[in-house]
Structures are given as structure tokens and as C-alpha cells.
């Protein structure tokens, strides 16, 4: 579904992404692990089109999208949620989801018609609210809801574009352990044909949800395999868990 071929990016002399080739099947849940500065978020930016790769390709459903800008990649089905919330504060939860759904439904530039009342947009909002467990708070303002709910909404907004591939940058960042467990249920409840690429710091969650694990270190893929294999890997312990425990 999503594939990179020898993707490389450097800022000046620093190689932040080096020869990264990964391949995600449709519906696969892949977790990316790696210490801080391993180039995880840079990889996301390369996938989403915020950064242009120096060399290599990004393919979505077999089509080369390397040259496409952010918005066109998003319309092809790549969506992302951010490590820091990027919500629209003054608006309600419903309006936040609606804003995203409207783009996908082609209602974002409609004149003299409110995009939110369009049936397609409403349908998406209801559906995403269910998936991201936001039904209870749909009409609350974003600045009135708890941090955990905002993290869910962050994922919800990304889902509202009805993506084929969802990139999630630390969805549980900053939430407590019991909330993280809730996120596991949330992730399990997502449609099976949605391809997920997740950056996650919470090891338990990572091993639970992942079909496969990729470990990045200094911008390079140093491990790729099943979670069970990752658990037992000495290499992983050395580069990742070592720095994880030190952090």
C-alpha cells in the first residue's frame, strides 16, 4: 500500500534519513521505534510531502507520489496526526471533524453553503466520532475538553479525511497509562483495511498493536520484523532500549 525506495534526506552534513526502504501491505499496522533523533518524524514528513527527499521514491498503492505536494498526497489518501495537537481551538469537536471531512467531500470551497450540513460531511463526522470515541463530546468546544479527548480528536481529524494510510506520530504522547490502554482499543477498532504507520514510545502498546516493527537509528532501518522477534532482539535492546531507559 505504502512503499519507500531508498529514501534519503540530509540537512547539510547530517543524514537524517538514509536509504530507507519499507513496504506496508494494505491493512498492515506497522510501528516505528527508535531513540530520539532517529529520524522518525522526518520520515513522516517525507511521506506526507512536507519535506522533499534528496533521493529515493515514495509509492502509494503502487503509484509514484514523490513529486506530489502535501495537499495532493493527502487527497490521494495519506493522512497524519501530529505529536503535538494541531486542533482548531475555538471550534467544537464536531466542527473540527467537519473541517477535515469537508475537504475530502469536496465541500471545502463551497460558496453560500455550510459544509457541515452537507450529508456526506455529516455522515463522515458521525462515523469518525464513533471510531475515535468522541460521540459524547461532539458539541463541546476543543478548549473545554480534557487533554486525552484532544489526543483522540487529533486522530479523529486525521481519520475524517477517510485516508487509506494513516501516519500517527506518538498518538499517546503525554497521556497517562490507563489512557494509553484506551488508545489500544481505539486502534483495534479502526477499519481493518486502513494501513497504519505509528511512531510510538509506549513499548507495551507498540508490541500489542503492531503487525510488524521497524526500528530506525541514525536515520537507517536497523531492524524490521515481527514484534516477537523485536522483543528478543539484542540489537534492539542495545540501541533502542538502552537509550530509552537512559532517557
Amino acid at each position, binding site marked *: 500500500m505504502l512503499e519507500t525506495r531508498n529514501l534519503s534526506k540530509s540537512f547539510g552534513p547530517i543524514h537524517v534519513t538514509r536509504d530507507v526502504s519499507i513496504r506496508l501491505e494494505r491493512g498492515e499496522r506497522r510501528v516505528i521505534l527508535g531513540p530520539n533523533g532517529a529520524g522518525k518524524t522526518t520520515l513522516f514528513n517525507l511521506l*506526507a510531502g512536507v519535506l522533499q527527499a534528496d533521493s529515493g521514491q515514495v509509492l502509494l498503492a503502487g503509484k509514484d507520489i514523490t513529486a506530489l505536494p502535501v495537499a495532493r498526497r*493527502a487527497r490521494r489518501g495519506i493522512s497524519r496526526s501530529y505529536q503535538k495537537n494541531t486542533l482548531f481551538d475555538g471550534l467544537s469537536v464536531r466542527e473540527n471533524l467537519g*473541517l477535515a471531512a469537508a475537504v475530502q467531500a469536496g465541500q*471545502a*470551497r*463551497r460558496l453560500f453553503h455550510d459544509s457541515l450540513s452537507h450529508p456526506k460531511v455529516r455522515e463522515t463526522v458521525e462515523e469518525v466520532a464513533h471510531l475515535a470515541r468522541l460521540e459524547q463530546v461532539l458539541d463541546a468546544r476543543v478548549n473545554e475538553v480534557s487533554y486525552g479527548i484532544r489526543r483522540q480528536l487529533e486522530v479523529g481529524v486525521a481519520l475524517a479525511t477517510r485516508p487509506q494510510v494513516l501516519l500517527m506520530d506518538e498518538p499517546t504522547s503525554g497521556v497517562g497509562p490507563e489512557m494509553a490502554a484506551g488508545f489500544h482499543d481505539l486502534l483495534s477498532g479502526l477499519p481493518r483495511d486502513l494501513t497504519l504507520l505509528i511512531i510510538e514510545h509506549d513499548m507495551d502498546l507498540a508490541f500489542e498493536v503492531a503487525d510488524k516493527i521497524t526500528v530506525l537509528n541514525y536515520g537507517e532501518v536497523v531492524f524490521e520484523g515481527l514484534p516477537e522477534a523485536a522483543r528478543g532482539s539484542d540489537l534492539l535492546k542495545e540501541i533502542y532500549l538502552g537509550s530509552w531507559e537512559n532517557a
Partner: protein
Amino acid sequence: MFRHTTFRYLVLAILGAGALFQAFSAGYFGLEVLIEILILAILVLALDMVAGFGGMVSLCHGALMGLGAYAYAMLSSIVGLPPLAALVGAMAIVGALAWIIGAICARSHGIYFIMATLAFGQMAYSYIFQTPIFGGDDGMGGITRPDLSAIGIDLNDSRSFALFCLAGLVLAYLAAVAVLRSGLGRSLCGIHHSEERMRALGLTVWRVKADIFGLSGLITGFAGALAAMHVMYISPGLLDWTVSGEALVVVILGGLGTLVGPLVGAVAFVILKHELSAVTPYWHLVVGVVLIVVVLSRANGIFGWLEARIGARRIFPTHAAVKKVPNDA
């Protein structure tokens, strides 16, 4: 995202009643002042759409309005279109030009956006100034007002023309509200909040910005045509960048991003100007000081300040009424 509140309706009602009262009771000079306020109000409405709701601080709206005046004059006097057709034509021309400017400037932000729009405004000014067909420095006279005698209205009468402008303002206001509450308006708010996020959601950001700028230009062109009809004479001074600066001042004095505030600002600005210039030739000094004080006070203009005060009084009941939101996932 624009919302009407009880307070906003109240202020609109007061403004409307005041305008109607003035239109029916004032003498010639009072009507002239009223017309000036109404035309400025349409301009600042258009400017608030882009600056207040989209963060696109334009320093070319004065020039766009001037272009509207020239387009109306050219279409009616030289091309010979009937005035109402010339009015529509002028709006279309300015709307199209504004769309192009918006599309080109969409990539610029902050001070660069301000400078880029200033450049386009000045380009229009120089072009009009230097092209003989537009009358150069001398400008053009002999501009006619639409003939509505078929429905028994003589627009050459100041009172009728004032009411015509008032109707125009109401239409412009309704159009601005409709645009801001549409899908396009919602997307604009999203962009104002985070352009990056909207792009990641798949929105073609520059198209939204250009569309809004074009629509704002349409309204600005309308104001320009009305200005040409009002004084029946136009000169390049209409396009001067200080007109854009003053329009921005009015938006700020009234309250950025409130739509109602700039209307209040227009009333305050024109009255202040006339009252002060009757007393002192140095009225710019006072306007300058008022502007500095308003910006330094960090209130969002006169209207924004009032709205915040009223909001502060209500804050206790609304806070208590906020439902405890479930915390679980």
C-alpha cells in the same frame, strides 16, 4: 468562524436605526457624511473578510476600490454601458484582479504579504496615474449615477443616494456573512489557524485564499463604483496606498475579525475626521495618537473591547453551565 451574538444583533440594529434616522432627517452636509460612512463601511467589511478572518493583511484594498471607481467610470462613460451594467462590470473586473493578486500573494506571510499587496496596489496607482486614457493626474469627471426613475427613485437626490448606499451596505454585509459561514469561510478559518494542518488534510490552500481575496475584491469594487457615483469625479488619489492604510486603521479601530466592529470603526473614523478637521487642520495627529493607543491597549478595537467587557460579565453563568466532559477513552 463568524457568529452572530445578541450583542452583535443589537449593535447592528442601533447602527441601522441610526443610518435610517440620519438618512431621513439630515440636511445636505449630514447626508454627505452618511454616504461617506456607508461607502467606507463597505470597503472595511471587505478588508475585514481577508485581514480579520484569513490573516491576509492587505495594503491594496484602497487601490482595488480606486480601480472599481475607474472601472465604473470607464465602462459607463467611455464604453457607454448603462450604469447598473457598469456597476456589475466594475465589480467583476476588481474581483478578477483581486483573485489574481490573492493567488500570487498566497505564498507570502506576515510582513511579506503586506509588502506584496502594497506593491500591487502601487502598481495599479502608477498605471492609472501614467496612462493618458484615464486622464492622468487630472482624473475624470462627468460620471453618472444609475437611473432608477422607472421605480420612482432619483439617485441624483442625496437622500435617495444615501438610501441606495445603505441598501448596498446591507447587501454587502449579508454577502460577507454568507461567505464566511460557507464551506469556503470555514476552510479560511482553518487556514488562519493552521495553514500546515489544512494542507495536510488535503486542502489546496492557495485556492481558498485566492477565492476569498477575489470575493473581497468583488465587494471592494462595489464600494469603488459607489464612490465614483458619489463624487461623480475620480482621480488617481483614490488609489493612494494611504487609503489602504486608513481602511486598515478603521478595521483595527473597530475590531478585527468581528465584521460588526469595522462598521462601528467606519462611523467613528468619519465622524472623528469631520469633527476634528472643523477644529484643527492637524486631525491626522489625533487619529495617529488614537490608533497607537488602541493598538497598545491590546483591546481588539472599540467593538472588540465592548464585546470582551460584556463577555466578562456573562462568564460566570456560562462557566458554571459547562458540562463535565467524560474523560475516558
